Structures are given as C-alpha cells and as structure tokens.
C-alpha cells in the first residue's frame, strides 16, 4: 500500500469512526431521553429507589435452601461474637 493510500485509509477510518460514534450516541441520547420521559409519565409518584437490593428468596433451580439465610446470619453472628471476645481480651 502506498503511503498516500495508507493516510487515506486512516482519514477514512477517522471519518467513518467518529461519524458513526456521534450518530450512535446521538441516537442513544434521543432514545434515552424519550424513554425517561415515558417512564416518568407512567409512574408519576413511585418512590425513588437507590439501588436494586431487594434480594428475593428465589431458588437457582428446582431446589432451594430455606435455611441459607439463618446459616449466613449464624456465621456473621459467630464472627461478631468472636470479634468482641477478642476485643475484650486485647
């Protein structure tokens, strides 16, 4: 490839590339704004949520563990107890 060709390729790539990036993100701006407006219109007084941590007790498959929460609590509870004992000592 001649050096002029090479530079031509580069300019081409820049033109298409930046052009496409702007087209894409412009459309994203439009669609996102539109989406936000619709969502806000359809649920006017939903309390604002600050994250998605309402973990449901859904099992991963056709078999679950109703005991997993207490187990976790037990472990953390034990850890805290030991921690206090240790702090008490030192």
């Amino acid at each position, binding site marked *: 490839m001649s*050096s*002029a060709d*090479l*530079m031509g*390729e*580069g*300019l081409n*790539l*820049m033109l*298409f*590339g*930046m052009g*496409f*990036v*702007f*087209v*894409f*993100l*412009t*459309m*994203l*701006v439009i*669609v*996102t*704004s539109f*989406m*936000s407006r619709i*969502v*806000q219109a359809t*649920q006017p007084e*939903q309390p*604002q*949520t600050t994250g*998605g*941590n*309402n*973990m*449901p007790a*859904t099992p*991963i498959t056709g078999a679950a563990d109703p005991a997993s929460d207490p187990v976790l609590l037990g472990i953390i509870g034990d850890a805290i107890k030991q921690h206090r004992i240790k702090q008490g000592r030192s």
Partner: protein
Amino acid sequence: MDKLLSLWYGSGIYNLTFGQTTMIVIGFLLLYLAIRRNFEPLLLVPIGFGGIVANIPEAGLAYSAVEQMANMASNAQLAELASVLGAPVESAKQLITAYHNAPSAVQAAAEHLAADSGYNNGMLYQFYNVAIASGVAPLVIFMGVGAMTDFGPLLANPKTLFLGAAAQFGIFTTVIGALALTSFGLMDFSVAQAAAIGIIGGADGPTAIYVSSMLAPELLGAIAVAAYSYMALVPLIQPPIMRALTTEQERQIEMSQLRPVSQREKIIFPLVLLVLVALLLPDAAPLLGMFCFGNLMRECGVVDRLSDTAQNALINTVTIFLGLSVGSKLVADKFLQAETLGILALGIVAFCVGTAAGVLMAKLLNRFSSTPINPLIGSAGVSAVPMAARVSNKVGLEANPHNFLLMHAMGPNVAGVIGSAVAAGVMIKYVTGG
C-alpha cells in the same frame, strides 16, 4: 557428571539473554509502579508478574509446544518439523513464522508432532489461549464492569453522552498517527495494527485487550501495558490540558443538581442500548452485549446473587488469568521491538487528544444549550473510570471550593466506556469486514 552439567546448561543463569534480563527488569518496574505508586494494581500486578515469569530462560512458559520444539529440538527433530510445515529449516524464527502462517490443518499436524516429541504448551500460553485468544476473558470482565456501573448520572443528564463521543477522537487521531509513522518510514504498522493501537485512546483496558487480540495479537502486550499505564497516569496527564483549554470562569461553573433516576429507567437503559447495538453495529454486540447484561443483572433486582458473583468471584478470577495472559506477551522477542516505543509514544498522544476533545466538546455544547456544563467534566469522557471523574472533581475544586463535579463527571465517564466500545466495533467492522 553429565547430569550435573545438564542441570547447569539448563539453568536460568547460564541461558539468560540480554532481552530476557531487560524484560524481567521491566516486569519489576511494572510491579513497583503498581504496588508503590498504585498504578492500576489489579491489572499491573498480574501483568508484571506474568512478564517476569514469561521471560524465565529455558522454562518457555509463554510458548506453545511447537514454538518450544523449534527453539530447543535437535536437528533431526527440526527437519521433521520443517517437513510437516513445508518450510526449509533455516532458523527457529523462520519455522515459527511458517507455523503461524500455515493453514490450520497443518498447524494441527505440527502440534501432533510436537506432542509426540515430548513438548507441551507453556503454562502462560495455555492461560492466553483460554482467556484471551477465545475472547472470553475481556467479555466476562466487561460483564462484571457492567454489573458495577451505575448509569444514574448519565440518565439524569443524557447530553453528557456527547462528551463521551467527543473523547473518542483520541482513538482515531492515534490511528492516523500510527499510519503517518508508517508513511514516513519510521515504523511499519498495518491498518489493523494502527486500529489496535488507536484503541489505547479508549482508556478502557478490556476493550483494548479485546480489540488487539482480534486485530493485532502480536502487539497485545505493548498495547495493554500502555493502556493501563496511561490510565494510571490520568491524574498527571489531564490537568494541564484541562487548564490550558478553559478559562478560570468556565472552571467555576456550578452545575445544577442531578434529578433522581427511577429504578425502572435504570432497568430499561441497558435494554435500549442493546437494541441500538443490535440495529446499528452488530460487531460491537459481544462487548456491549455483555456489558448491558451485567448492568441489567445489577439493576433488575431479581438476580442479585448472579450480579454479586459477576462483580466479585468471577471478575476477580478472570482478572488474575487475564493479567497473567497479557504478561505472556511480554516475552523479550515479542516485546522488545521498535514498534513498542512507537506504541508507547502514540498512546500518550491518544490520551491527550481525547482529553482535549472532551473539554472542547463541553464548551461547544454550552453554546447551544441553556443549562451550562462545566467543561472540566468533558475530560472524563475518555473513560478511565473513575479516575478521570475524580480528576474533573479535583481540578474543579481548585477553581471553586464549593463545586463538587464528581457525580456530574460520572455521566461522561461511563459514556466514554460506551463510546470506546462503539469505536471498537466500527474498527473491527472496517478492518475485518470491509
């Protein structure tokens, strides 16, 4: 006595080459920067360590079985290998080149021969194949990053997407720079290689690794090292540029508080993004698809145990092996090339241009919009999450001690991740699909 000598002839110190020594020193330098200077340690610790291990003489941990055979076999074995590859035996290097260029059925035959001759793939080579050559590791990391990303600030102010778009200018300028170096006869980069180098300007590690593993795997080591090093240097690189391109008054602009964003918007956004990708740029579908998937798991609120694993055990595991795999590309004979210097030089240009473009775009937007944007958040469009947003905040505080720009800068910051992935898709399409 023979055995004793063989131990000595097989020792590292007897076989150490100058290149290996250099690369081991570079590996230690990366570890120093990561551990003492806090340069993106999560990646640079594994990369630096992998780089050292890859250059242990005689261990061949970064080489495939065939490469090891070419480097170490007896003449009789070499002749056999050459006959399988249909190449003359002139040097190990030539045999290896012939192997890489051979049709895949011939490669398979050479691999069978190497296995029968007792050579195995090196440990790092295996990691590289499973983690990077398959494309899986960068995608899984992108999924985890998606699960860690909060699009709230972006959704509150979607205009900041334009800042993320402008900053991609650094990518394409670098491509032209690489091709210019080639035109002037200083370097010898193909269009594919130039595109892979350009992506350093995306300031996004997994995107850079993904693109260069597809377009220019031979440059992957240098590109990854440049990308992560300059990302760590963002607090040094950006402020002078930001100050030079803005007036004191502009830097003092206070932005109105971001509106609250509902969970429903956050759930729908990754799906909107996915649909746009599907309709406009299928080549970005793997990267942005996994990113959207991670973000959907985060926000939908019903698969928190999956999201939690994606953000922790899974991304950590993959990061370890990705880093070691990148390290395998730091073997002396692949890294110590003039091209590496070119890549390092071009990378810094990419960051500077991207930063400048982001700031200037913010100033441009201010001309057309009533709600003003502090141009300092434009620089955050290069990605380098969350470092670049912190830099915007810090420079803003210097001009106006009551002006907290951090949350405002998170918008262009995550927009930069999307922008780079889109740019990556265009370049992959242009180079391979053209």
